[in-house]
């Protein structure tokens, strides 16, 4: 069936199998392999993307469910070669080791910051409950989300 989806600002129409998972649409149809697959049970969050501004697990949506919507993936974070503050923060705070869970972590982290512009450690840890990392023990990820929130608050106030 035909779906029209705007991904990272680019609108495209494709004919897909109705059962095609959104994550496979992103990875295999669009070639956006930055969104990863880490489980079959909606547990790990490696596939997290934004659908109409909300963090969702793209392994648990069928592509037709995203018809007409706007999707943001990790590939859409940096603008004109400049890293997004969340990317800078993960880099500076050593918020990643193998980096496999990182795209999903960053997408969820952005939602946490949207909901809590100055998040506490507890809010961050609770907000990340749907994203698993096996490398970092989460501490540097929490630091990265804190740092990103500070950067983004700074940008927001600087823009006023």
């Amino acid at each position: 069936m035909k779906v029209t989806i705007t991904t990272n600002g680019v609108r495209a129409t494709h004919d897909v199998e109705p059962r095609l998972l959104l994550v496979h649409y992103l990875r295999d149809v669009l070639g956006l392999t930055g969104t990863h697959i880490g489980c079959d049970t909606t547990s790990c969050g490696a596939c997290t993307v934004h659908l109409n501004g909300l963090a969702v697990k793209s392994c648990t949506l069928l592509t037709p469910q995203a018809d007409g919507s706007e999707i943001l993936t990790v590939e859409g974070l940096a603008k004109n070669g400049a890293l997004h503050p969340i990317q800078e923060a993960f880099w500076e705070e050593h918020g990643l080791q193998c980096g496999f869970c990182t795209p999903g972590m960053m997408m969820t982290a952005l939602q946490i910051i949207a909901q809590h512009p100055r998040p506490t450690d507890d809010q961050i840890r609770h907000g990340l409950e749907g994203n698993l990392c096996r490398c970092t023990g989460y501490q540097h990820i929490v630091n990265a989300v804190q740092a990103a929130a500070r950067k983004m608050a700074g940008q927001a106030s600087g823009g006023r």
Partner: protein
Amino acid sequence: MAVTRLFGSSIKRREDPRLITGEARFLDDIRLPGLLHAAVLRSPHAHARIRNVDTRKAAKAPGVVGVFTGQDFADLNPLPCAWQAGGVQNNLNTPRALEIDRVTFTGAGVAVVVAESRYAAEDALGLIQVDYEVLPTVVDAEAAVRPGAPQLHPNAPNNICMDWSCGDRDGTEAALRGADVVIRQRLVNQRLIPNPIDMRGAVATYNPASQEFTVWMTSQAPHVMRLLMTAFVFGIPETKLRVISPEIGGAFGTKIYLYPEYCLVAALARKLGRPVKWMEDRKENYVATTHGRDHVTDLEVGATRDGTITALKVKTYANLGGILSTIAPGIPTTLYGRMLSGCYRIPHIHCQVLGVYTNTGMVDAYRGAGRPEATYVVERAVDLVARQLKMDPVDVRRKNFIPPEAFPYDPVGILAGLTYDSGDYDKALNRALEIVDYREFRRQQQEARAQGRYLGIGLSTYVELCGAAPSAWIGLPGQGWGAGLWESANVRVHLTGKVVVTSGSQSHGQGHETTLAQLVADELGVPIDDVIVQHSDTLGTPFGYGSYASRSAAVGAVAVHMSVQKIKEKARRLAAHLLEASEADIVYEDGRAHVKGTPDRAKTIQELALAASVGYTLPKGMEPFFDETSYYDPPNCTFPFGTHVCVVEVAPDTGQVRILRYVAVDDVGRVINPLIVDGQVHGGIAQGVAQALWEGAVYDGNGQLLTGTMSEYTVPKAEFFPRFEVDRTITPSPVNPLGVKGAGETGTIASTPAVVSAVMDALAPFGIRHLDMPLTPRRVWHAIAEQRGEPR
């Protein structure tokens, strides 16, 4: 040139830009023209004979290119076992690309569908009909060795793969007879499922004209995989296979091994003349990728009344699963039994290990690999002595510590010729107690108990073995390892002054591209941006043994250091020629070779690299180009140590354990990048704490894995943990010129016993001295209820 000291600096990782932008290429991201997709049919039975496999229906399904069974790969040899238990008979049984007539665990591959898409391949799997003769199963290692147990392999009577021991049996038994107190305890070190977030996979191509394979695989040791696949499984020249490890999303040991599917995709690519990919899904990862730990241990520890430990006797049943993974027998033997002295002077030690086949998934090295199990036994033993003698566990540890002046220390021969390299155990302990304010905590604990709150503090003072290993020690005649364990590196300085480092180590999250570049930039005196580090491709990197056992810094980086030294030597000789000075008068520092006492008479490394590359002006007999390869075989392993302290509160009405504080003071020798080491320590602690409190694989009696997805097996989440308080002492290793020891596994090794110790301390008022892991609310609550005599 501005020269800053990079060794010891927390610089940002150079691998991160591609990882944070989604541009990294993991195995599943590989796209090739004409790529086919394989899906493996796995046995639903834990023990069965395969009578017949009917593939006809599946072969006709849409999009299917071929369906194959074990018979179709009968020309391939079984996979090799590369590390046997040293010095004893090993009754080896290893997997085939697909099993032909028998399966011994659920998840063993019995057929494969290759199709134009993974969806089509998966659809067709359900159309394959396998006629199994289901056989009786045994999943418990102790039950498996009892008479009458189902027998898994004809060559392994009583399901015993090997019966290995180390230490002094008679002396240990005599010392136990003479001890003031002897404490006996059974310990279960439960089976864990490693769960790297990226799973396993392989993509293979075959060129019929040259008869060459290229296989991308999720491997921590690409060169070793090439060797094992070609020389042992395929029987083809090693040169006919190129192995490439792409970006790897975590491994924790599970990606050291040669797996059936890697051989299968290569054979399929050859059969079908098209590239073939297999990517594991999480369900497969749970059953078909290796697990870790799974020991049942009976320990006896003897001590004098003042807390001096006089003997430790250990008997362990190590469950190896239904068939052997690549290095399975080496883990519960060399890496376990030989570390049972811990950081204590124990005059008599004996350890017997029975490696046992059961109808469960393969067990092999998982982060720490043998050393967490050893540390758990030793640290529990020390705590039990303290409990029995009503002494403070800190005092018992201090009384038995190997003192700083005793290094190098030989733990009564059980390390089979190795010695602990250096250590100051008291220093790390003191620092940790200071951070946690031990005395104040004990006061608060008393207060809390008076209010009906149960706080506990637990210690783990550990030592572990890194930097494996001297080849002459670990090799076949001694420790059963089927090869050497040195590491390699090549360093080249190109005409433009840019430096290319290739390493036999393999990075899957540890940051080699940063730390190795830090070393090279420092030593050579060039900007770090001028150094690139390449690894993980058998084409273009020297043979190396790969990354595991915390060996990349303590072995791999030393090979890099040696190559840089050779280049500096050559640079000095060339500079002497160009500056018309005596070689003895040339000093190399900060990227320049200058005449001693006249720093202005100098050539920069860039000028020298240009001269060496163009070759116009070389001294007689000097070969052009700066290009040096080194092979470093360490004279000893390294022995990091430290103290971890965990503070918990147990809620008696629910059994819930809450971690209030976690303090880690590690000594990993000199530290190249503190931020990266902190990250390693955090991640290790999380995995070790998770074993103590939450994780555990559960099989039912039929060999069905009941914890077979991330929904049933507790991979810990961010909110499970407090903020870890991490500090270090630094005792350089005398083993290598960098003074480094290794930091990848300390957290996992140290943390598990610290947490268990804390919970047992909290439960002491109930008279509970030991509970097996994981210390789930249910288990803790039951134990408390039982002690209170409440109905459960």
